[in-house]
């Protein structure tokens, strides 16, 4: 087990190097730092001095890969590649293009993101499993059929409609909760309710339809037939046999999402003005802050890979038939 985890972590290194090179290529080779400076300072009537000044103040004034101006190890370390890309590996994120410390910002914004993402995940999981179980219990009947149709309809609605519609209905028309915003401590509760509700509702369609297929797959297996043959009630078969086995793919699927919860939800956070990492990313994109986008790409990839490793571990924990070697 331990050896397996170590090996998986070792596999992750070349992938991270690949991502690092890719982002480096995208951000510094496709467009030179000069282009970036011009973008920020305005396209027309920008003096070369202004560009140099902008580059110097943001640390983009070094050579890309090899600095011939200095000697020794600094030949390689005094470059954009080392300063901006390699330092990501030790989670030294540097400062954003408007001069703020990215690591500090990320630390500040992680909690609000989790405050929305964790309840959405847990409640959504419970709701989806309930609906899926209901459809599986009534499989082949009109309850099941209309449930599936409803799921397809719910799936076909854009996530933005759920958000805008929910904000309008619950916050503006009924005035149950504030439209958007955030607060610290327990005061945040009233701001969290609406995003969580919308997050859950918008996921019902795809989620419960997907889980239903897991349940139906299990329901067709031999051991289920045996359970029925020995006279178990259908509800017992459903809860004791089908549910427990179908939970394996569901749980492992959720585990892979866990690390990415830190990244928050782009749409929810930006619509509800939650100061989390999702809105941080959106702001970075909209302000064309290349430093933030670069860091978030790297961070997101790291979390995704951690999620993959966690899935494998989770499989061995939930399903005793699987041994990792």
């Amino acid at each position, binding site marked *: 087990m331990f050896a397996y985890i170590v090996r998986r972590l070792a596999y992750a290194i070349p992938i991270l190097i690949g991502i690092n090179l890719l982002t480096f290529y995208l951000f510094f080779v496709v*467009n030179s730092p000069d282009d970036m400076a*011009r973008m920020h300072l305005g396209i027309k009537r920008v003096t070369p001095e202004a560009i140099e000044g902008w580059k110097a103040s943001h640390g983009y004034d070094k050579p890309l890969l090899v600095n011939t101006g200095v000697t020794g190890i600094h030949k390689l370390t005094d470059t954009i590649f080392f300063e901006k890309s390699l330092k990501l590996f030790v989670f030294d994120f540097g400062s954003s293009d408007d001069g703020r410390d990215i690591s500090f910002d990320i630390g500040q914004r992680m909690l609000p993101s989790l405050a929305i993402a964790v309840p959405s995940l847990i409640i959504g999981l419970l709701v989806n499993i309930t609906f899926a179980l209901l459809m599986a219990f009534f499989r082949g009947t009109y309850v099941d059929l209309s449930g599936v149709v409803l799921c397809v*309809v719910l799936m076909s609605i854009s996530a933005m409609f759920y958000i805008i519609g929910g904000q*309008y209905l619950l916050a503006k028309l009924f005035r149950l909760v504030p439209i958007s915003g955030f607060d610290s401590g327990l005061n945040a509760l009233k701001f969290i309710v609406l995003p969580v509700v919308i997050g859950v509702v918008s996921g019902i369609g795809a989620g419960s339809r997907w889980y239903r297929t897991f349940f139906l797959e299990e329901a067709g297996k031999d051991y289920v037939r045996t359970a029925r043959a020995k006279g178990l009630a259908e509800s017992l078969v459903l809860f004791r046999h089908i549910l427990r086995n179908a939970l394996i793919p569901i749980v492992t699927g959720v585990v892979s999402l866990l690390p990415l919860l830190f990244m928050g939800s782009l749409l929810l956070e930006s619509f509800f003005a939650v100061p989390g990492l999702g809105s941080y990313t959106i702001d970075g*994109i909209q302000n*064309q802050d290349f430093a933030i986008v670069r860091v978030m790409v790297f961070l997101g990839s790291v979390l995704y890979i951690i999620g993959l490793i966690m899935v494998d571990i989770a499989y061995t924990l939930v399903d005793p038939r699987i041994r990792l070697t």
Partner: protein
Amino acid sequence: MIKPVILWTDSLIFLLAAVVVAFILYARSKPHIRTPWKRVFSGRIASASVVILLAFVLVGLLDSLHYRLPLAANGSTGEIHYAGEVLSALDALVGPLRTQVEKTYSAPFATHLFTMETIELEDGSKVRDYPRLLYGARGLGVAGEGRAGDIIKRCLLAVAETLLAGVLLLIAVSAWLGRRHGQPAGSMTRGILQGILPIPWRTILLTLALLLLLLFLAINLAGAYHVLGTDKVGQDVFYLSLKSIRTGLVIGTLTTLIMLPFAIFTGILAGYARGWTDDVVQYVYTTLNSIPGVLLIAAAILMLQVFIATHADYFETTVERADIRLLFLCIILGITSWTGLCRLLRGESLKLREAEYIQAAVCFGVAHGKIITRHILPNVMHVVLITVVLDFSGLVLAEAVLSYVGVGVDPTMNSWGNMINGARLEMAREPVVWWSLLAAFLFMFILVLAANLFSDAVRDAFDPRTRAR
């Protein structure tokens, strides 16, 4: 003379249409391809959604025939200059919808503007009031009296036209079916109406009639009213929604078209060749997959923005610039979405490689290239087809989100995402400006729902696992 403009996405769209037509012609004589398709079209829901999808495609294709109008000829040189505005066949068809621009917001079927203005009366005095629309409810009086009667009259006319067209359609279809099957047209009509034919013609015709009704309603009403209101700069929302269809379709189809050859090639290669080729392909797709999709798209689009901003002189018109951005967006989305198909194809080819008929082909000394094209490729095509169809609706929805984030299509381009983005802040107004949002969501919802229902039917018909059940 008008000057035809062929945008990059136009040519790709027509290439795609040609491929689809060629495939249909090819598949007509192949029973093993026809059988699953017959199963798709034997479903009522699937047939109805195909009709709706085709209607969307028709609008999209019409909107892809672009041209530029000539300006008044310059007398001295005789050289013709063309307008900077790029129009499409759809613009020509809808005519006044494009040009009937009001000042700002107006509600659906409104007679007056949504906002108050200071109006100067004929006697020189000034009042604050809602000004009369320039084009909306034009045939009516100043106060818009008799509007309800006029609308009802136009609706009834549309219903009558639909009934007429529907009956003609029914007669035409039953005559055609009768000739094909060598039966009298009358019995075919009965078969259609009773819904007992193997292909659910009744559902298809009903859907068509519904579309015809919408068409006639649009023809009768849209000229005289702004049926879905006007947006901030007074453009007709119905027109904008129609124009957005093309953007949605381009994103949904071209993305897969662009990534398809690459995904098929690498997927089959990895599964068939195994060894280090497999390792390399796996490494590449794991790496790309690890980057959160939105962020990769954002990074790439930000870079494209820098490129476009610094090379503004490459593009003759704003439409061409927007088009390049759309194409690039498709490519980027393709890069992020080929990984899924590639992984599926790799797994499938790994499995097929061990199949007995492939082993036999290897033993007979058939060349590897031939084994791949003759034996493996046809047997993984169902995976490709299912993925393509399933991806479509997700891509259409993704466009709206990306446009909101600011890394979607060009802000000047008509798209549902841009419509939502422009209208969502107006929800804070009192009374609410709801029509742009609703129109965008309605169009998107119908397209995505039809695509979802269709893709379910395709998956059920082509996936051997579901077929066995």
